């Protein structure tokens, strides 16, 4: 079996290449409103399952308004160094004097009172300064496990949009976008086959797509229906 290079995938997240479909139109609309210069909206929370495009929208907003993006996926790395020190201020330090507060994966906020306090203070600092705040997570603010109750109700003051891309048309469009990020040409019949065979969530589709790509490169074959079937069988 020939091994292949693991070239890094560079995903391009902008408003222009965001795949707008029925289940994410509201979130997209809210995000562009918030990112517009004359926008009156200052607070947005978007939620939805993994792979539905939350990070894409948050990154696009950051690019448009020149803010820094932070995901609680990196919370461990952020807090690891000074986890024992008093009132770890590292998130606040990292966000610093940014033009906006953009935080992703809020559901991964660690279950610790000092983090809750820090986030609450950060929120208030940006809110009272009239700066924009955008957050995202897997679930609705009320269902977020470790969030401060005050913050939950504050988030509900702003724009809140759910994202759902579980219908076939949305998944078809998203698959094409994921293939484009990987410079793959994916025919409709391959997409159909994937929608038929693979679990409905986007991470599973992405995993299948990577499998097809790897098989095509390793065996130097075109991405055809036959090859896709072989990859999915493996």
């Amino acid at each position, binding site marked *: *079996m*020939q*091994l*292949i*290079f*693991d*070239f*890094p995938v*560079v995903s391009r997240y902008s408003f222009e290449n965001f795949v707008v479909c029925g289940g994410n139109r509201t979130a997209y609309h809210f995000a562009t409103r918030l990112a517009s210069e004359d926008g009156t909206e200052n607070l947005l929370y978007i939620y939805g399952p993994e792979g539905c495009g939350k990070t894409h929208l948050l990154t696009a907003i950051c690019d448009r308004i020149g803010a820094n993006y932070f995901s609680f996926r990196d919370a461990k790395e952020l807090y690891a160094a000074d986890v024992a020190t008093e009132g770890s201020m590292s998130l606040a330090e990292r966000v610093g004097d940014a033009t906006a507060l953009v935080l992703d994966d809020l559901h991964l906020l660690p279950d610790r009172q000092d983090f809750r306090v820090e986030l609450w203070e950060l929120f208030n600092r940006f809110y009272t300064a009239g700066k924009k705040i955008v957050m995202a997570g897997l679930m609705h603010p009320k269902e977020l496990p470790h969030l401060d109750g005050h913050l939950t109700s504050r988030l509900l003051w702003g724009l809140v949009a759910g994202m759902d891309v579980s219908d076939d048309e949305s998944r078809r469009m998203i698959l094409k976008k994921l293939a484009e990020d990987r*410079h*793959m*040409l994916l025919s409709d019949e391959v997409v159909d086959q994937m929608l038929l065979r693979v679990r409905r969530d986007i991470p599973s589709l992405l995993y299948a797509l990577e499998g097809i790509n790897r098989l*095509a*490169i*390793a065996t*130097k*074959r*075109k*991405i055809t229906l036959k090859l896709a079937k072989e990859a999915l069988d493996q």
Partner: protein
Amino acid sequence: MEFKISKEIFLKALQRIQGIVEKRNTMPILSNALLEVGNEQLFVTATDLEVGMKSSYPTQVIREGKITVSAKKLYEIVKEMPDEEIHFSTKENDWVEIVCGKARFNIVGLSSDEFPYFPKVKEENFILFKNEILAEMIEKTSYAICYDETKYNLNGIFIKGIDEGEETLLRMVATDGHRLSVSEKRIEGKVGPELAKGVIFPKKGIFELKKMTEEEAGEIMLGFMDNSAVIKKGNTVVVMRLIDGEFPDYTKVIPAQNNCNVLIGRDKFLHSLKRMAILSSEKFKGIKIDLNPQLVIISSSNPELGEAREEIEAQYEGNGISARFNAKYLIDVLSVMEEREVELKLKDELSPVIMKAAAEDDFMAVIMPMRL
């Protein structure tokens, strides 16, 4: 239109565009060559909308005009004509008459109105290259180009210019996902924004460029306009559309921790690989390389045929390592290297190997191993 031209010149002009014309016949006009005469010159143009070529040749113009005719048929006709002057003229309804000696052909042409527009080239911001430099760099990278059209960002050579103060470094990179080749040369002149960012030349354009470097001596001029590269040499201009995609970040796959360095004679290594590859499987060409102090053992086995093994002396003082590779990939690299001594840098069984000339740093190949 009407003109007279020597067979030798006409044949050369038509031969040059044979690689350009569209062979799949999706648009009939693209299998034709556009012939234009005026100002004692014949202009021959061909394009497949990806790569276009226009050349001029001295001719005796009797009546100015233009027409398109099948590039392949015209070439075949001119090739078989006697070595005399050829008389070419257009008749009514786009018919063309070609007379040479006592041979006379009447062939059907197509109006030039339908022929794609060939951009006017402004000779601004061109950078000059020596033939040999481009020829060598293409030779050392083009073997690794990916031929699978569904991986379109790999269907060419990535070319980048790096400004280093007084000097400029030109780098070419190609990969098919299994192996990667990187060639670098110092050039004169400053690079523009396109080369500084890096562009992907399509493989068809690369092979045309290579042919141009191999024709008569001279310098090649390179410029860019509207997502295309413009190459000019003597009386020929080639315009090729650059690949609209992003080349992968190849620097991430070049290993930095390969500390097992082997020095081995190129010729011995090459011939041994060719011998050992005979017994490897047709499809994967897998051979095994065992590194031992001062000794490299190359072997292959095939359940249907048998097995082969060869020992080669080499300079190596590290630990024993075994790794499997596609013999063709190693042979491809050795075939484009002229240096006598080759350096291999390995890490372990499943990590890529770096191959380069022991004495030079302007070329490097990285090859992924095979797993049993």
